[in-house]
């Protein structure tokens, strides 16, 4: 419908329909509202179940712990000589020592370089300050991933439920692991071992009972005692099973639990709670170690999360579960006893580097506390199309940085038993 040009003078007396052009005037494309949303809380702190030790400076790169070992029990019966007419036989009791080394590791964390223009014109304010919180959370995850990785690779045995090669592998390789999967419990080792896990192969109560038996009888592992761990009110004379909420939640489907449950137990309304046999209690943790096994038998450790990068998707930009992580067939739980590891406190940096004063711009900080810095070199394109680097003299840029030094000292590594199992959420005894 064509309308007369506006403004109009001397228009037709019958002109009645002349709607305003909706697109003529300025308006906001959309109304932006900043919303705070709750994210699923990360469960599981890998520092709490273990002790701690302080690193001593100026004594070298390695701490070697010396532990006195009790003498072995060498007999099941004893047959002393009769007193009359027979000399007494003699036992000579000798204790031994073992040593275990510990090292410090370090890692740096940074944000992208922030530019003042974005902070001036973008909708969400104070993004630089908010980024500090995210770097802190990232570091906590990093430390947890490091600690549990060391425990896994250092363990002298691994439990594989329903494995055709035997459920306990106490000849597994031991090391510190590496990003390429070539050391420690290597990818090649796991590809062969996981293929042997039979059925059901899940973290069943039967499997936990068998793992507990190995820990107590064969590994000679020591349960937690009162006062041996933080928040230990439930850990007296117990072992701790650190597993995912998925594995724990699936216990209500366990045939052993169903057979042995009290008649009054209402697992539908109340779920399964508490410990097992008065010997094993549970600590749930997020983003457990999971393994994806490909069609050719090779394995990988997919990242737990990923970002939706399709601009046409309704949740563009959202952090979502990685599909490969969701498809992972195997998961790792830990059955933990007391005094397996000590978390190392590195202490302060060397005094010369930690001191601040009028002659210093800043000082070395390695406690993992994120801070904002403007000490950045800025690239500048020269007239000859080269790149020169200039100091951030005009303070146009900021960056969040953090430096962390961390370590974990193996004490008695056999007190942690990794349990690799097949994931399942639906092992019900359905009558349908």
């Amino acid at each position: 419908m064509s309308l007369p040009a506006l403004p109009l003078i001397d228009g037709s007396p019958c002109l009645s329909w002349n709607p305003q052009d909706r697109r003529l005037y300025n308006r906001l494309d959309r109304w932006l509202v900043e919303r705070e949303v709750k994210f699923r809380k990360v469960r599981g702190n890998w520092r709490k179940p273990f002790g701690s030790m302080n690193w001593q400076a100026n004594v070298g790169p390695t701490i070697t712990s010396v532990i006195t070992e009790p003498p072995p029990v060498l007999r099941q019966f004893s047959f002393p000589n009769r007193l009359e007419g027979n000399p007494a036989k003699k036992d000579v009791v000798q204790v031994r020592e073992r040593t275990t080394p510990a090292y410090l590791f370090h890692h740096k964390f940074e944000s992208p370089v922030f530019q003042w223009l974005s902070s001036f014109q973008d909708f969400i304010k104070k993004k630089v300050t908010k980024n500090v919180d995210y770097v802190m959370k990232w570091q906590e995850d990093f430390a947890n991933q490091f600690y549990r990785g060391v425990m896994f690779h250092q363990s002298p045995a691994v439990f594989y439920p329903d494995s055709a090669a035997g459920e306990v592998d106490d000849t597994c390789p031991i090391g510190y692991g590496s990003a390429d999967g070539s050391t420690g419990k290597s990818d090649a080792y796991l590809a062969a071992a996981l293929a042997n896990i039979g059925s059901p192969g899940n973290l069943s109560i039967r499997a936990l009972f068998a793992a507990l038996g190995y820990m107590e009888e064969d590994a000679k592992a020591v349960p937690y005692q009162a006062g041996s761990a933080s928040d230990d009110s439930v850990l007296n004379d117990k072992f701790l099973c650190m597993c995912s909420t998925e594995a724990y939640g699936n216990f209500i489907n366990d045939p052993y639990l169903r057979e042995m449950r009290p008649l009054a137990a209402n697992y539908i309304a109340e779920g399964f709670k508490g410990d097992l046999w008065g010997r094993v209690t549970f600590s749930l943790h997020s983003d457990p170690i999971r393994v994806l096994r490909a069609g050719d038998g090779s394995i990988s450790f997919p990242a737990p999360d990923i970002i939706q990068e399709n601009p046409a998707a309704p949740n563009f930009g959202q952090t979502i579960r990685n599909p490969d992580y969701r498809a992972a067939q195997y998961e790792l739980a830990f059955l933990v006893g007391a005094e397996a590891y000590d978390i190392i406190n590195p202490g302060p940096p060397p005094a010369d580097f930690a001191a601040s004063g009028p002659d210093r711009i800043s000082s070395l900080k390695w406690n993992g506390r994120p801070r904002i810095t403007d000490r950045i070199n800025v690239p500048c394109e020269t007239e000859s199309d080269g790149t020169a680097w200039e100091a951030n003299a005009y303070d146009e840029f900021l960056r969040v940085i953090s430096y962390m030094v961390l370590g974990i000292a193996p004490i008695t590594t056999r007190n942690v038993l990794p349990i690799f199992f097949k994931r399942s959420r639906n092992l019900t005894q359905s009558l349908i």
Partner: protein
Amino acid sequence: MITASFTLTANTAQLALTGRWVIRSIAYVNGAAGTLTAWDNSSTAATQSNEAYDNRTVTDPYTRTTTNDDLVGNEQTYTYTGVADEDNTVEADASWPLPIAVSLATPAAGSVSTVTRINTGRGLVLKSTVNATAIVEYEPAL
């Protein structure tokens, strides 16, 4: 619970199911004596190619001796007996056989069934030595 029937050709592996399933029962129906085997895989291959990896072997018993002087200069020989963990390399195996999850056999034409708790990580592969039918009851594992 899902029930599906699979027609099997003699000595030909068939990928019956792909993905994560719990196999509750398998019935094996044939017209002659035969054997049915089932295993977990996402293809009909019955083997896996394993790379070489390191682990440990235990030498039991293991004895070592050392010599040292005592405080007055006498040379002493000390003998220690126990076990020894030693580094070992498991050689690569390009045709490592996948474990059989269940095996059913009939001595003559007929049928046999079994309750199972097979939890497939990649899929269910079936193979019969004779032409046969396998009836599988299963449900999702995840």
